[in-house]
């Protein structure tokens, strides 16, 4: 069985070697004539604006949070699925309780509106003072 993991190791070594050799060959073979337009971020001519390190909105964090919780749930599902046939209904009830408890958390997040993406209200310019008097008739 551990020979299978040896195959994974060999596969990874080949993957690393493939990328390394590709870089190495490109380093020697590719002509190097850098120019301004080649080194710009978007070669189509669009200039970048602002910093690369923008701060992301905190609302994405809740999505990541739900992801990690249900990621752990999947990890719990694996050993359950392997022994499910031996244990039968008992295991089914156990996992149902487990899942219901976790789904409660998801319902909580949904009910509190953490996943709601409130769109920014567009500011419509409003004319406060009328410059020209409008005839009403």
């Amino acid at each position, binding site marked *: 069985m551990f020979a299978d993991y040896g195959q994974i*190791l060999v596969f990874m070594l080949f993957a690393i070697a493939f990328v390394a050799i590709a870089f190495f060959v490109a380093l020697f073979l590719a002509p190097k004539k850098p120019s301004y337009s080649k080194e710009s971020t978007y070669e189509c001519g669009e200039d970048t604006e602002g910093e690369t390190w923008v701060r*992301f909105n905190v609302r*994405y964090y809740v999505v990541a949070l739900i992801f990690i919780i249900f990621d752990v749930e999947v990890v719990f599902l694996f050993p*359950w699925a392997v022994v499910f046939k031996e244990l039968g209904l008992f295991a089914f009830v156990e996992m149902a309780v487990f899942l219901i408890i976790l789904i409660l958390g998801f319902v909580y997040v949904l009910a509190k509106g953490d996943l709601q993406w409130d769109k920014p209200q567009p500011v419509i310019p409003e004319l406060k003072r009328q410059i020209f008097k409008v005839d009403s008739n």
Partner: protein
Amino acid sequence: MPDINTILFYIFAFLIVSFSFIVVFAKNIIYSAVSLFVTLFGTAALYILLRADFLAITQVMVYIGGILILLIFGIMMTTRITDSEIKTTNLSSVPAVFVSAGVFVILIIVLLTTKWNINPPVENDVTVNRIGNLLLTTYLLPFEIASVVLLIALMGAAMYARKK
């Protein structure tokens, strides 16, 4: 000629230790995150050497696929727009090195003076089977409580992250 396991152990141990040094001492926080990836992956490889293959996969899924992603999310959300570099500062490191060396020496002394209870390894093919059986019978209560822990963590963290 050393055993293939010994060679693999040394390779992964070297990877883990050197990249964990980068995690701690890198100036750029993104380098730290990427080095943490290599460290966690090397540890997963060592788990396979220790014949805990299911835990190796759990490590890859939970740590690399989950916690590391969450960490990178955290980095992206706590970078100031105003300063372009995300470098970090250090304290003076002399007392810290002393404390760490103290911990190291104490643990090494414990390692050398303890008589470990080593049994011959159980020949087993799949660890998932046994883990599943134990999880659903002997460790049923911790299993259900783990779901409660995850639920509370989800609710609490969502509450923290919510805009007030």
